[in-house]
């Protein structure tokens, strides 16, 4: 029963899910506003409880707790991952009804809120999962919630196609992952990845077959992280889904998948004589390819959401770089990087929504000359893009420096050539990324447009205010990053 004490946030999330769900049933179509308030209020309680876990952990021995027979693991790292997820979930919950397309949905948005809450529960478990079973179940929980969200607005062929693609691709990759998990179980005879026998048995099994099993599991994780070559679904789905859903997809599951990945890697790295599968090589190669493919492909995009989709692939590659260090400061850098990336990316998508709401602009071309008519959101767009590109003074720059520092420190110790290659690729792709990031200010400010699109009367002061707040955060975290620096130990 000890475990329940550490499981409070998740219990509250479960209750919250039922509460939102029932409210929706009782009040029917008009319940959107109430459900949203309940969800946000509930999440605030969850955040409080998650913070409380820090206190609980400092009292427990070793700073770690294992729940439900080693199914879940809770350390400071997991707590911070959960915090980031919850904060972003609140931002996305706020953001959902500000999108014109979603708000016009005939079913109302109450269902969507309950799905988001359920997915946050899945994300929490995903971050903590250290058992092959809990890993699989949590990933499926998040996947199913995501399928529903992507297909939530299926009024046009594009969105239907996006939903369908996502479900098919997701189902296949989770099946492949399950196959890999069953192989791992077969080789090791254990589901608990922290179990000593799990790694020991794997290390004495045939390395080729073990590598195959691990690669199969990577397919499942890669689908969530959207690294190359598991990224094919990303552009279509990000473009087809409603923009707040894109904001959700491009941030939350990705963050949780990094948390899961870290936990999955830990036993292999800490096991001294592990040689069957070179994770560092794997991560480096995948990271380099992901950075190059994501950033290069983004250059040719004209649709803003598609452009941001490819840029988010590039960011995954960059974060993988820090993961390849297998070190505390690498994890610390990942946390900061993901937080900054996620906030900026949500901000960029909010701006996409804003311009769609205002002037129906989906493409770069329709951004022509808009900057001079809407100076405030356009300047915010520039600030947010600077952060995504990683130029000073912005949070993204500090995040980039932190990632580089963490990689460099490990490189300095082991002189692994792959880490150097990662750093150089990271620097080179930063320049490449500027090619497309700068396109948006280019169209906003530099290009002239004689015939303006008609303004829509629809105004969202809240959307603009939150965009400004995000830009402000990006700047403040750029000048004083220590306020947002997360001490792991």
């Amino acid at each position, binding site marked *: 029963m000890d475990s329940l004490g550490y499981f409070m946030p998740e219990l509250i999330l479960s209750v919250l899910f039922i509460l939102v769900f029932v409210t929706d049933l009782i009040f029917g179509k008009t319940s959107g506003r109430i459900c949203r308030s309940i969800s946000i209020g509930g999440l605030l309680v969850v955040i409080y409880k998650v913070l409380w876990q820090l206190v609980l952990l400092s009292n427990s021995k070793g700073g770690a707790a294992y729940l439900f027979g080693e199914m879940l693991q809770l350390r400071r790292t997991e707590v911070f991952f959960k915090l980031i997820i919850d904060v972003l979930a609140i931002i996305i919950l706020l953001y959902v009804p500000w999108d014109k397309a979603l708000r016009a949905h005939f079913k109302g948005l109450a269902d969507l809120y309950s799905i988001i809450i359920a997915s946050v529960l899945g994300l929490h478990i995903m971050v903590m999962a250290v058992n092959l079973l809990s890993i699989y179940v949590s990933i499926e929980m998040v996947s199913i919630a995501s399928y529903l969200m992507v297909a939530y607005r299926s009024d046009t062929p594009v969105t239907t196609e996006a939903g369908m693609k996502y479900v098919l691709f997701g189902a296949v990759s989770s099946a492949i992952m399950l196959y890999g998990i069953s192989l791992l179980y077969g080789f090791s005879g254990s589901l608990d990845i922290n179990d000593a026998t799990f790694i020991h048995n794997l290390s004495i099994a045939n390395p080729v077959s073990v590598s195959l099993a691990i690669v199969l599991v990577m397919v499942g994780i890669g689908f969530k992280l959207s690294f190359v070559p598991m990224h094919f679904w990303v552009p279509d789905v990000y473009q087809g889904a409603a923009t707040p859903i894109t904001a959700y997809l491009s941030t939350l599951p990705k963050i949780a998948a990094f948390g899961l990945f870290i936990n999955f890697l830990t036993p292999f790295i800490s096991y001294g004589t592990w040689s069957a599968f070179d994770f560092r090589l794997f991560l480096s190669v995948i990271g380099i390819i992901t950075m190059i493919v994501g950033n290069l492909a983004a250059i040719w995009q004209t649709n803003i959401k598609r452009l941001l989709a490819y840029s988010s692939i590039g960011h995954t590659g960059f974060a993988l770089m820090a993961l390849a260090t297998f070190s505390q400061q690498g994890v610390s850098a990942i946390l900061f990087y993901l937080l900054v990336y996620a906030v900026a990316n949500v901000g960029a998508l909010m701006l996409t929504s804003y311009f769609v709401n205002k002037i129906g602009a989906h493409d770069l071309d329709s951004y022509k000359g808009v900057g001079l008519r809407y100076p405030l959101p356009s300047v915010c767009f520039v600030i947010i893009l600077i952060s995504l590109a990683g*130029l000073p*003074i912005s949070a993204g720059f500090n995040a980039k*420096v932190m990632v580089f520092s963490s990689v460099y*420190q490990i490189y300095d110790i082991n002189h692994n050539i792959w880490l150097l290659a990662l750093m150089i690729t990271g620097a080179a792709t930063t*320049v490449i990324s500027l090619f497309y990031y700068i396109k948006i200010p*280019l169209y906003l400010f530099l290009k002239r447009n004689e015939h303006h699109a008609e303004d829509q009367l629809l105004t969202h002061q809240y959307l603009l205010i939150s965009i400004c707040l995000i830009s402000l955060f990006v700047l403040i975290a750029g000048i004083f990053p220590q306020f947002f620096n997360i001490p792991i*130990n």
Partner: protein
Amino acid sequence: MNILTLLIFSPILFGLIILMLPAGYRNIFRYLTLFATLLQLGISIWLYLNFKTGAAYAGVANEGQYQFVEKLHWIGLNLGGMGRMQIDYFVGVDGISIILLLMSSVVMVIAALSSWEINKNHKGYFALFLLLDVAITGVFCSLDFFLFYIFYELMLLPLYFLIGIWGGVRREYAAIKFFLYTLFGSVFMLLVMVGLYFSVKDPATGNHTFNMVQMMNPANYDSGSIFGILSHRLLFGIPARTVGFIVLFIAFAIKVPVVPFHTWLPDAHVEAPTPVSIILAGVLLKVGGYGIIRICLGIFPEVALNGAFWIGLLGVVSILYGALNALAQRDLKRLIAFSSVSHMGFVLLGIASNTAEGMSGAMMQMVSHGFLSSMLFYLVGVIYIRVHDRDIYSFRGLGTMLPKYTVFIMIAFFASLGLPGFSAFIAEAFSLIGAFNSKTIPVWMAVCGSVGILLSATYFLWTLQRMFFGDTRLKGGDAWKLALTDLGKREILALVPLALLTLALGIMPSLVFDKINDSVLALIQFIQVK
């Protein structure tokens, strides 16, 4: 409050005021910006007058000898297991930076004066202008590498918009090219910066540090660290310190610009509005030269000494290639842009000579070119704003039509081609004396440098002959004749100080040399010892 901090950040205050005022107050924006730059000039002059000279104030590799220092803890990032990342807000000046600070303050005032021609989006323009001003001043004052890098990168974005929104026909292309070129250099500089950070420890605290002055002391490097002098680490089969030097050198060489990396400059200059051209040529190029002296030479002195031949070669190539290109140009602004490439080559030549004369010449050339290129671009802007044409062959016999204008053109041209009595003569003469006396570069380089002066005389005089002598004939006919009015009061007000300054420096070079001498000597000694 520290005087340097005030100098750096005072424009931000005016920028915020401009942003808060309604967009209609154009004139107020102009005067506020002018006032901000004049205030900066005032502070710089005060700094210049109160700058102490003497061997005890040489600066360079000696932290205690910097003046007007302010050092605050700024960013302390927890890096998990490996301690904290400590970044200081650390500003200070020595002889090398004080003189460039003063020069850039003067140029910014001139740029502000020439901003009167800006005719759209005043609010955005002046806000960006002041942001750029902050970044430029910050670069010359920073002694912390991280801070330096932030100011260095901060220059890019305002410039991108200033060229891109207020520029000429091909402004988008020019702005992006400029941005990407510079970013390409600086991103890799970031990697070297991180590497240096983890190589250097502050002896006082035992922590890693971004402090540039500490990076100059070989004793502060960890044994076995990548950039440690004694650790002899290799990167791609080349000594790591050489790689670090090359990366930093390329980053700054793009800014200078040195010849293989110069192609952004003609485009950016041609498309930029006059005030931005003035800032680009007057100040931005010097950031490159300053970076080479302060960072490349300061942190990797032994590599610089060994590579002096290549630095000198690049300098000579820039001098000749820039001059020959200038000869071939029809567009007056392009001609001046290439003459900048040529003249900045002398900076490299002087640096490569590793002599006190050469280094002083390089510094003098930066100051002198700052004033002269501002003057030249201002003068081109004067014609362009009147008839929107810059083709040399569209004009003939302007001398009789625009007498005042021609006087200033003659001063600027003759000063630039190195006529004795003007600053450029002193600068080029010292660079060449240094090159002739140098033990690190061969004599033929000095000879080629002299040929460069000859070439610059050719293109300037030929342009003078084509555009200003003979009967008045204009491509635009009578319409142009009406449009081409002689200099107005504001224009004369901007040009007179520049003309006087270059004359003053030509007659009394001690105005510069007195301030930089100790630092230059200290720098030369510092390099030779290693």
